[in-house]
């Protein structure tokens, strides 16, 4: 192992046998795939693409990057990687807060769980060792109580707890893992994978005294890279602490501008503009509900916004965090702008352990289905009290409708006989940007390797905010190339593991300098993009092998045929135009990675690619 920066320690836990084995980081894999998302996907890839996501054969990996827990700004993140029970794809879902740093300080680059425990357990990571403990007393409890009990048991508030709630235990397909800061590994159903393994939580004990420090001769390079990144953050019009829009209003600074341009999916995408969305926007939240602005490890931006409801039936309710995605999904998308109800629903998601985006889409799909007669006595638009009741029924699998909706928007719509009403791609529901109003993000949803997602390739930065350069949101031409740049760049930053928001003030050059200063591997901005491309192609190759072949990149029909409203009146997604360009730029054949590309990127050897080429890929249909 010649790379620096890593702990060079990975734990593999066989929950069936209740045994733990330790190994180092594979240096070849670390060079090719970096860490966090990239390395985690490689572990999942090596485990095989055909496993049942909720079987003991699946693995779930908590993976840090080489920068995690270091003094580099915005580096307090880890990736949870597994095969998703929601999409059947490989997935990676990242959480912020302090858990990632503490897992690194506890001595680990990665903790990988396989098998299934005989009875509920939790794992404790401390001083480079993993121990398993009985969690029978915690099973059935929400994440908040689980955190309280485990922190009290293991030393206090400096202990990190990454736990599932009842949703994960009941295998809700969009169950999340929540940590002590209410930060979530939210998308893709990672919490259900833990539940399927009888794994309640991963606890990490570590303090900053174990933080990685560079050797004396490397200190100047590390300091220089860190200061360059910090300068971008401090001077950025968006990220500057207590001055920039992201710092003052959080992610919900987006609500008004996205609604202004008519790109806010409203009432399950029946419209793309909500006339009263301003009432749930970041400006309104800061003025009337904000009580605290905590932050993640090594981040001066503090985009998290903790709110408190002052009056009404939810008076006294205090929760973190009133994000743009959650406010949209559980509010405008469901036809209402009632802040207390949205806050209550976010709070439920955090405690039960569920993805707010998928839950909002589950509700809006059910509302659409009710309106169109597919669901008798279902759910009507803006029926907030029933939403709160149903959230509980879903998490606890305590009613027939709750069990149906626990399958996610796509799964529920299919069961109700109206699959066209689910705004989902590859089984995962869309986030808060309407593909009719922002062309590139629609292509991003269609081609995301983990189902509909804005975070794989955040072209919104360019198409709306003009970061790093302005493109026209309404134009399809050029979006294939633009999306590839974003996808590859973010695949790299996700693998270090840096917050996505670092890309608002840094680029490939800053990432290269950070990475090379910590690991000692000389790296250029071209290397960054090439490595990101390799990671993106590895994910796609996994999905191809898992049965998602040609035809798996699509958008819900509504966005292709029903025009948008507001600032996007008359617009539909021009997906066909963009997909053609995208596949050309990627060098893919209708969404399938050809063997020559796998060899070119160093994913497969020539011999392995030749063997793969002789196997039929199978024309899988989208889920």
């Amino acid at each position: 192992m010649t790379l620096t920066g890593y702990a060079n320690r990975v734990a593999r836990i066989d929950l069936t046998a209740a045994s733990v084995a330790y190994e180092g980081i594979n240096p070849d894999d670390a060079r090719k795939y970096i860490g966090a998302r990239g390395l985690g996907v490689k572990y999942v890839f090596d485990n095989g693409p055909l496993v049942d996501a909720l079987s003991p054969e699946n693995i779930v990996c908590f993976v840090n990057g080489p920068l995690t827990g270091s003094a580099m700004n915005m580096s307090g993140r880890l990736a949870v990687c597994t095969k998703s029970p929601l999409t059947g794809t490989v997935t990676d879902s990242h959480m912020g807060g302090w858990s990632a740093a503490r897992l690194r300080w506890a001595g680990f680059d990665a903790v990988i769980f396989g098998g299934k425990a005989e009875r509920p357990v939790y794992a404790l990571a401390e001083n480079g060792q993993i121990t398993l403990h009985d969690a029978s007393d915690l099973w059935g409890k929400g994440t908040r109580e689980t955190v309280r009990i485990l922190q009290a048991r293991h030393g206090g508030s400096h202990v990190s707890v990454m736990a599932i709630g009842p949703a994960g235990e009941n295998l809700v397909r969009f169950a999340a893992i929540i940590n002590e800061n209410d930060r979530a590994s939210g998308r893709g159903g990672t919490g259900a994978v833990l539940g399927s393994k009888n794994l309640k939580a991963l606890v990490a004990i570590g303090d900053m005294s174990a933080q990685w420090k560079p050797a004396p001769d490397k200190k100047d390079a590390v300091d220089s890279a860190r200061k360059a990144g910090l300068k971008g953050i401090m001077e950025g019009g968006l990220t500057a602490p207590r001055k920039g829009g992201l710092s003052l209003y959080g992610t919900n600074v987006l609500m008004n501008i996205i609604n202004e341009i008519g790109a806010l999916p409203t009432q399950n995408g029946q419209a793309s503009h909500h006339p009263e969305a301003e009432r749930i926007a970041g400006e309104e939240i800061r003025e009337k509900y904000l009580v605290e602005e905590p932050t993640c490890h090594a981040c001066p931006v503090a985009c998290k916004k903790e709110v408190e409801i002052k009056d009404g039936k939810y008076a006294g309710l205090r929760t973190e965090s009133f994000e743009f995605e959650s406010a949209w999904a559980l509010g405008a998308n469901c036809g209402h702008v009632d802040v207390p109800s949205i806050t209550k629903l976010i709070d439920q998601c955090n405690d039960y352990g569920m993805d707010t985006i998928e839950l909002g889409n589950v509700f809006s799909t059910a509302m659409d289905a009710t309106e169109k007669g597919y669901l008798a006595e279902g759910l009507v638009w803006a029926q907030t009290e029933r939403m709160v009741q149903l959230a509980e029924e879903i998490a606890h699998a305590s009613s027939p409708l709750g069990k149906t909706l626990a399958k996610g928007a796509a799964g529920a719509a299919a069961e109700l006989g109206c699959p066209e009403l689910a705004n989902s791609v590859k089984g995962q529901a869309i986030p808060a940007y309407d593909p009719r109003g922002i062309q590139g993000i629609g292509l991003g949803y269609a081609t995301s390797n983990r189902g509909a997602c804005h975070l794989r390739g955040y072209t919104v930065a360019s198409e709306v905010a003009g970061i790093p350069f302005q493109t026209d949101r309404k134009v399809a031409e050029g979006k294939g190339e633009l999306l590839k740049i974003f996808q590859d760049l973010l695949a790299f930053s996700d693998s270090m593991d840096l917050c996505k928001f670092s890309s608002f003030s840094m680029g490939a050059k800053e990432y290269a300098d950070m990475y090379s200063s910590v690991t000692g591997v000389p790296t250029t901005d071209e290397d960054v993009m090439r490595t990101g491309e390799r990671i993106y192609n590895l994910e796609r190759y996994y999905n191809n092998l898992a049965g998602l072949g040609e035809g798996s990149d699509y958008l819900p029909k509504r966005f292709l045929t029903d025009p948008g409203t507001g600032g996007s009146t008359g617009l539909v997604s021009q997906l066909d135009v963009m997909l053609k360009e995208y596949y050309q730029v990627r060098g893919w054949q209708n969404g399938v990675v050809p063997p020559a590309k796998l060899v070119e990127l160093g994913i497969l050897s020539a011999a392995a690619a030749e063997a793969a080429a002789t196997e039929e890929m199978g024309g899988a249909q989208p889920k």
Partner: protein
Amino acid sequence: MRIRLFATLRPLAGGKHADVPAEPGDTVHTVLHRLIEQHPALTGEVLTPDGQALLPHVQVFIGGESIRHKQGLDTVLHQVDDMAVFPPVAGG
């Protein structure tokens, strides 16, 4: 005309919007200068220090259309109705 303001521009202007004299044929540039004259705290927040260009990442919309995809600051107002001005915003 009524100019709607968002995010960090609101505390600087002391409200959610500003009413600025305007008539058909005025350019966006002219109207923004009047806005800044009315609210000097917006100096350096919307236009460059020399007042000749829109700051990077600031967005001005007329009817949901960004002026960056029209004629920029030279965009002529045909109907004096509604303008929205955003400072740099993004998230996820």
